[in-house]
């Protein structure tokens, strides 16, 4: 299996003359999980959407294996789990999943209890938690080499969160995963390394003390 590396730098994003992102450097290789932490409104979701290609910004440089890419989703290089629900309504889950999930991972995906239980249902027939779980599963088992998960632990139960962490770890053997969530203990639990987004800049985090230094966590 070939290893791939996603690199993101020189991202500049402004809203109403307010600089949201200005000094960003982020890299992720297949086989690792990178946790992205940051306070509300610091630009975590914007950064993920810029990498994915669904949000335009002043400037960015996103590359995979040194090759510049303008839209991350083209050719299934990058998949992104948005904060909101994204599956089209009125269509059965099995029909939505078939063209979406990587054929090489289909048996793993289709054996999952959540898919087995809900495959003949439509989006409207699922609860918020069930839908979130299925949407996350579909992204993780998609064709992309890199997966961006924006708040995957929100709206799901602690048991489902543990299952998701195991799944992310398993999938990270072949994919690169960037995960962000306000439930930082879940992010810390699943990540190989942590990046903090602070004042528009990315800062590598070594331990909890760094998170306190940058005022992300309170001193105990």
């Amino acid at each position, binding site marked *: 299996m070939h290893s791939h590396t996603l690199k993101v730098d020189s991202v500049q994003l402004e809203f109403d003359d307010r600089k949201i992102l200005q000094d960003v450097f982020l890299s992720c290789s297949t086989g690792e999980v990178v946790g992205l932490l940051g306070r509300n409104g610091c630009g975590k979701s914007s950064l993920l959407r810029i990498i*994915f*290609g*669904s949000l335009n910004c002043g400037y960015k440089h996103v590359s995979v294996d040194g090759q510049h890419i303008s*839209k991350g*989703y*083209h*050719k*299934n290089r990058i*998949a*992104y789990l*948005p904060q*909101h*629900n*994204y*599956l*089209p*309504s*009125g*269509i059965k889950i099995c*029909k*939505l999943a*078939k*063209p*979406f999930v990587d054929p090489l991972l289909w048996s793993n995906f289709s054996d999952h209890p959540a898919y087995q239980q809900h495959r003949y249902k439509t989006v409207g027939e699922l609860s918020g938690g069930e839908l979130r779980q299925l949407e996350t599963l*579909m*992204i993780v088992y*998609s*064709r*992309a080499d890199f997966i961006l998960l924006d708040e995957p632990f929100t709206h799901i139960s602690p048991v489902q969160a543990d299952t998701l962490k195991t799944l992310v770890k398993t999938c990270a053997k072949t994919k690169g995963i960037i995960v962000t969530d306000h439930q930082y203990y879940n992010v810390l639990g699943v990540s190989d390394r942590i990046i903090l987004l602070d004042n528009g800049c990315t800062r590598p985090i070594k331990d909890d003390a760094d998170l306190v230094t940058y005022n992300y966590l309170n001193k105990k």
Partner: protein
Amino acid sequence: MKRLTTLIFHFYRPVFFVNLIFSLCAIFNLIKLGLVAMPIVLVIKIFGYLMCVGYQYFFSAKSYFYYRNAGFSAKQMYTYIFILDALIFILLSTIILIPTYAFAHVKG
């Protein structure tokens, strides 16, 4: 190809009936006025496509992420469904107009 076809049908599904109604309106004008109605037909079809974009934008824009994650931008999906719709329109026009003109010709 089968995968893309499935995605196109998923994207086309919510706006199929809206486009069908506009197509039937356009064909009605063709029956009534003949080929001189072509500019009207064009306006009706373009208006139908704008309605379709508006509907998707306001009611199911979040699902764009489904198609992007499948590797296709919203622009690509709109292009595909408008080509598909144009083909359906041509097919419907042929099916409806040929017998109508033939009947009018026989009638004298």
